[in-house]
């Protein structure tokens, strides 16, 4: 339990760091932070709205520490300012519309790729020199060398445009309204197939390779030799003794990889015009919408930190040594 709390403390620290970075960025750049943030609002905001906006980012005339506290107060209350690109909607509202789609897309892709890659890695290491070991790693490594969003473009072109097997973008047909029906779920699945598929293809190689290497290392360890010497059935040796232990480094690496994969997922969303954070991000960049950009950064960071903590809890469950707080 101490381990879980210590990790939580670390994530809170990282979250604070992100918040602080957001606070200082406009102030570090050359020029007046207010003009950087609000240049695009010129002429669009009533004076009171402008004052409120300045408050949100702590751009009061007060001392720096006081500005910081004002900013923190607003951020913690969920007030992230007003969006330029989607004026006059507040940033939190804009982000909210896309968050669920991003979590669905990136989350499913990551979990699928991890599960598939891990299984393939176990197979490759157990049947060393076999098909899974010789053919798949180089092939998947080659596919992984392409930028995710490029694979998405190719997939969209080949399977969407040419073969018309899958729709060309968005999360669901433009003529439908979201509802909790199986028909709608099917529609969502159809639209999500290509984006999730391209992310999985791009990332599964990495998971497979790391699991295979961990497995090969564990297969050489004494307790696996002992398991064999004990005459345990091969499947038990492979799974209960070898794979269970080889899984641990993959799980600890999962958290770190998450942030990286998420970046690729955001770019993939753009290719498919998927209504998630990636799409919003591109709008924000194009319109120099700093409040929205910083808001997305914050929300995505918090999501990744939260996911990392969940992974740490999973690790706690999987590895009894972590429970002593010795990790």
């Amino acid at each position, binding site marked *: 339990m101490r381990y879980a709390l210590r990790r939580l403390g670390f994530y809170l620290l990282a979250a604070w760091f992100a918040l602080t970075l957001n606070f200082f960025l406009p102030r570090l750049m050359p020029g007046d932070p207010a003009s950087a943030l609000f240049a695009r609002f010129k002429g669009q905001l009533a004076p009171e709205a402008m004052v409120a906006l300045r408050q949100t980012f702590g751009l009061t005339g007060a001392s720096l520490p006081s500005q910081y506290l004002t900013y923190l107060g607003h951020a913690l209350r969920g007030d992230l300012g007003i969006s330029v690109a989607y004026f006059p909607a507040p940033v939190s509202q804009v982000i909210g519309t896309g968050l669920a789609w991003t979590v669905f897309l990136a989350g499913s892709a990551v979990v699928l790729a991890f599960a598939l890659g891990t299984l393939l890695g176990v197979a490759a290491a157990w049947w060393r020199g076999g098909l899974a070991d010789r053919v798949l790693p180089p092939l998947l490594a080659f596919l992984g060398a392409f930028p995710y969003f490029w694979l998405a473009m190719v997939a969209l072109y080949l399977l969407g445009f040419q073969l018309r097997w899958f729709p060309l973008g968005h999360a669901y047909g433009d003529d439908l309204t979201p509802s909790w029906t199986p028909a709608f779920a099917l529609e969502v699945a159809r639209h999500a197939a290509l984006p999730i598929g391209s992310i999985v293809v791009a990332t599964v190689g990495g998971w497979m390779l790391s699991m295979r290497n961990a497995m090969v290392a564990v297969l050489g360890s*004494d307790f696996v*030799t*002992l398991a*064999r010497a*004990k*005459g*345990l059935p091969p499947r038990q040796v492979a799974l*209960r003794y070898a794979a*269970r232990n080889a899984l641990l480094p993959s799980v600890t690496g999962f958290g770190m990889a998450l942030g990286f994969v998420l970046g690729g997922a955001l770019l993939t969303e753009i290719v498919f015009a998927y209504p998630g954070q990636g799409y919003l991000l591109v709008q924000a960049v194009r319109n120099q919408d700093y409040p929205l950009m910083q808001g997305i950064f914050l929300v995505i960071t918090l999501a990744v930190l939260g996911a990392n903590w969940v992974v740490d809890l999973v690790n706690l469950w999987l590895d*009894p040594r972590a429970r002593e707080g010795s990790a």
Partner: protein
Amino acid sequence: MAEPLLSVRGLSVDWITADGPVRALDGVSLDVAPGEVLGVAGESGCGKSTLAQAVMRILPPPAVITGGQVIFEGQDLLRLDEPALRAVRWRRVAMVFQAAMDALNPVLTVGQQLADTQRAHEGGPPPTRHAIRDRSAALLELVGIPAGRLDAWPHQLSGGMRQRVGLALALALEPRLLILDEPTTALDVMVEREILQELLELRRRLGFSVLFITHDLGRMLQISDRVAVFYAAQLAELGPAAALRGEARHPYTQALLQASPPVRGPRVERAGIPGMPPSLRTPPPGCRFEPRCPLAEAACRSGTPPLVQVGPGHAAACFRVSGSGR
């Protein structure tokens, strides 16, 4: 003597490396009688651990067994296929590893690992969970661990306790032969003594044979009935412990004994052995101990010395000893 339990004849093991094979065991022969303790001693890399793992055929890649026979209870283990080997492993021959602390699966409890062993080998109807747990508790008590530790994780136990768990695991199916690969090297002297005494006590009660591998010749002479001394992948001397204690005939054995004199007893001049063991990739022609041997002469480089009988049940591989003892 009666039919030996284990008879190793001319066993050779090679490690296949990218630069060619390295012979880790070269034509080794020895027997283990029922109920006896055979000690195997030698420096690191002399092949003794290789022997232990070769008997059970659990040497990791890139090892290959390239010659000889391993006759156990009348069967040549080297000729058995995988399922037959699995039937023999643990049920008839079991092993306690060096540093059993790393030989226990970190993510399973002690009880789960004891249960795995039992479940893997049941012939008749599968035993109940209760029966398995009772037997596991009994095994732990056998080696002096309170039954409450069944639900402990390996990392929660001390080194000595983990070694005892290794012993309990090995005895789970009441094997006829127990192979101990440097079981106490990583433990401190007090714990070592306790474990060895318990081992001897168990041997007395249950009657299994022991193949005991260590680099500590002195310790081994105390607890073994017979002793085999290895040097550079070959057998140097083999005989009753009492004989080796008093009259070791191979110069290497004599040098080893001189290097670790007993704590009690008359003062003996301590002397190390100058030089290093030879590379097994390019072993010297002739006797492998010749470069470091105080008794070496020109003839010693001519060929590998055969094992010569120097006393009842006592042989040494040296050109300089005459047969039938002095």
